[in-house]
C-alpha cells in the first residue's frame, strides 16, 4: 500500500488511465442515478426524459440534425477564423503606434461590452443575408479576446531583447516578426481558447435572435423548433451535440497551443517535484 497520495504520479501509465477513468465514472454515476430516478418516480418524458430516451432521440434524429449541426460548426469556425485574422491584424496595427491604439481601442471595447443579444436584432435587420448576419454576430463577440490578448503580448517582449534588436540595427519588420510576434504567441493562444468557446456561444445566441424568422437551420434553431413541439428529448439531443462541439473546439485549440508551446513555454511544461 502506498502511504502518500503524492506518490501516485510516479507511475505515468496509471496516472493517465485514472485521468480518463475518473470523469467517465462520474458520468456513469450521474447518468445512472438520473435514469433510475426517472424510472422509479415515473417522471413523464415531456418533463424530464431519461438519458436512454435522449440517446435514443439523438440516434433517430441524428441524420436530420447533421445538416443543422454543420451550419453551426461552419458559422462558429468561420467566426473564429475571422477573429484570428481580424483580432490579430488589429493587434499588430495597434502595436505600431500608441496613437492608433488610443484612437480605436475604445470602439473595440464598446463592441465587446454591448451584449450581443442586444445588437443582434439590428444586425439581422441591416445585413441582407441571415448567414452573414449570424457570422457577424459571432465575430463581434469572438474577436475581442484575441485582440486584447495579442495586443498585450506584442507589448510584452523582453525590453533587453528589444534593445538588442536595436543594437544590431534590426528593421521594424524584423523586430515584429522575430521578436514581438513570438513573444505574443502564448498570449494569442490563450485568447484563442477563450474565443473558440465564445464564437460557439455567440453563434447560438445570434441564431436564437434570428429565430424562426430567419432561414437559418443551425442547431440553435432546432432547439427552438423542438421546444415549440414540446419534444424535450430532442432538445436534450441538440444540447448534447452543442456541448460536444464546444468540448471539441476547446480540445482542438488546447492541442494547437500545446503543439506551438511545448518546446519552450512554461505554461506547457510538465514539472516534476
Amino acid at each position, binding site marked *: 500500500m502506498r502511504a502518500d497520495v503524492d506518490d501516485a504520479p510516479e507511475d505515468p501509465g496509471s496516472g493517465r488511465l485514472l485521468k480518463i477513468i475518473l470523469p467517465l465514472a462520474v458520468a456513469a454515476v450521474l447518468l445512472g442515478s438520473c435514469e433510475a430516478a426517472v424510472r422509479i418516480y415515473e417522471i413523464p418524458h415531456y418533463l424530464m426524459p431519461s438519458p436512454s430516451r435522449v440517446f435514443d432521440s439523438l440516434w433517430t434524429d441524428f441524420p436530420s440534425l447533421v445538416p443543422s449541426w454543420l451550419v453551426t460548426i461552419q458559422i462558429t469556425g468561420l467566426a473564429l477564423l475571422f477573429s484570428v485574422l481580424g483580432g490579430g491584424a488589429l493587434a499588430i496595427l495597434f502595436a505600431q503606434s500608441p496613437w492608433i491604439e488610443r484612437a480605436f481601442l475604445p470602439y473595440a471595447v464598446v463592441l465587446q461590452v454591448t451584449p450581443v443579444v442586444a445588437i443582434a436584432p439590428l444586425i439581422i435587420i441591416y445585413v441582407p443575408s441571415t448567414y452573414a448576419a449570424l457570422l457577424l454576430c459571432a465575430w463581434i463577440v469572438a474577436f475581442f479576446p484575441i485582440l486584447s490578448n495579442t495586443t498585450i503580448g506584442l507589448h510584452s517582449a523582453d525590453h533587453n531583447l528589444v*534593445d538588442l534588436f536595436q*543594437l544590431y540595427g534590426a528593421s521594424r519588420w524584423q523586430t515584429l516578426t522575430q521578436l514581438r510576434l513570438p513573444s505574443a504567441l502564448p498570449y494569442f493562444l490563450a485568447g484563442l481558447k477563450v474565443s473558440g468557446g465564445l464564437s460557439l456561444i455567440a453563434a447560438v445566441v445570434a441564431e436564437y435572435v434570428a429565430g424562426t424568422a430567419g432561414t437559418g437551420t443551425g442547431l440553435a434553431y432546432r432547439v427552438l423548433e423542438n421546444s415549440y413541439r414540446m419534444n424535450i428529448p430532442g432538445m436534450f439531443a441538440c444540447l448534447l451535440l452543442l456541448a460536444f462541439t464546444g468540448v471539441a473546439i476547446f480540445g482542438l485549440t488546447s492541442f494547437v497551443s500545446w503543439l506551438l508551446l511545448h518546446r519552450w513555454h512554461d505554461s506547457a511544461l510538465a514539472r516534476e517535484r
Partner: protein
Amino acid sequence: MTVASDLLERPSQVSSPLVRFEGVGKTFRNGTKALVGLDVGIGAGEFVSLLGPSGCGKSTALRLLAGLGRPSSGRIAWSEPPDRHDIGFVFQEPTLMPWASVARNVHLPLKLQGLRYRASMPRVEEALEMVGLEGFAASYPRELSGGMKMRVSIARALVTQPRILLMDEPFAALDEITRSRLNGDLLHLWTERRFTTVFVTHSVYESVFLSSRILVMAARPGRIVADLPVDAPFPRDEAFRMSESYNRHCRAVSAALRRAMEQ
C-alpha cells in the same frame, strides 16, 4: 586634496583610444543627473571595468557606448565609427529568446544582418565552442542552467567578432562558484583574442581579477573619481587570486571605492 583626484589627474596611458567619452553628461527626463562630465578614453585591447555603487551611472555609460540612448551633453568619439556588428552586448540577464534553440539564439545577430542559418552555422559553432557549449546547439534555453545561459549570451555577443564587448554586470545574478568559473573562462578568451572589453560590475574582487584598468565611479551625480591600472601580467589564473599582488590591488581599489562612497 584626496588621493582619488590625484589619480584622476594622472594622464591616461592610452595614446590613441578606440573610443573616447568627451565631456559626456546624461540627464534623464525626470531630472536625475545620471552622468556628468565623463572624460575618458578606452584603448584598443584593454579590459576596462566600470566599478561603483548602484546609481553611479555605470550602466548608463555602457548603454551610451552601445548607442542605446544619446548623451545629453558632450559626445562619444570613436576612432572609427562602429558598424552594427562591431559592438557586442551582454546584459545582466541572459536575455535569450525562449522559443529559439541555443544555435538560433547565437545566430540572431547574423540573421539580423541577413545571413542565413545554414551559411552561418560554422560561425555559430565556433562561438559555441569558444564558450564551451559545443553539443548544446539544439537545446532550448529553459533546459540550461543560469551559467550556461550566460555562456550562450556571451557566444551571441562574440559571434559577430565585435571590436568591443560591452558587459553589464553579466555575472551578478550567478552563484559564487559559477561566477568564478565564468570569470576565468572570460579572461581566458580575452587573453587569446584581445577584444576590447568594457565590464560593468560592483564587485571589487571581480574587477581586479579581470581588468587591465579600473574606472571607479561615484553616485549623485554619476562621475569617474579614480582611474586605476591593474598592472599584474596576463594570463591570470586561480593562483593570481591567492597572490600578494591581487590582495594589494583589491585593497587599493576598495579604498578608492570607499572614498567614492564618502564623497
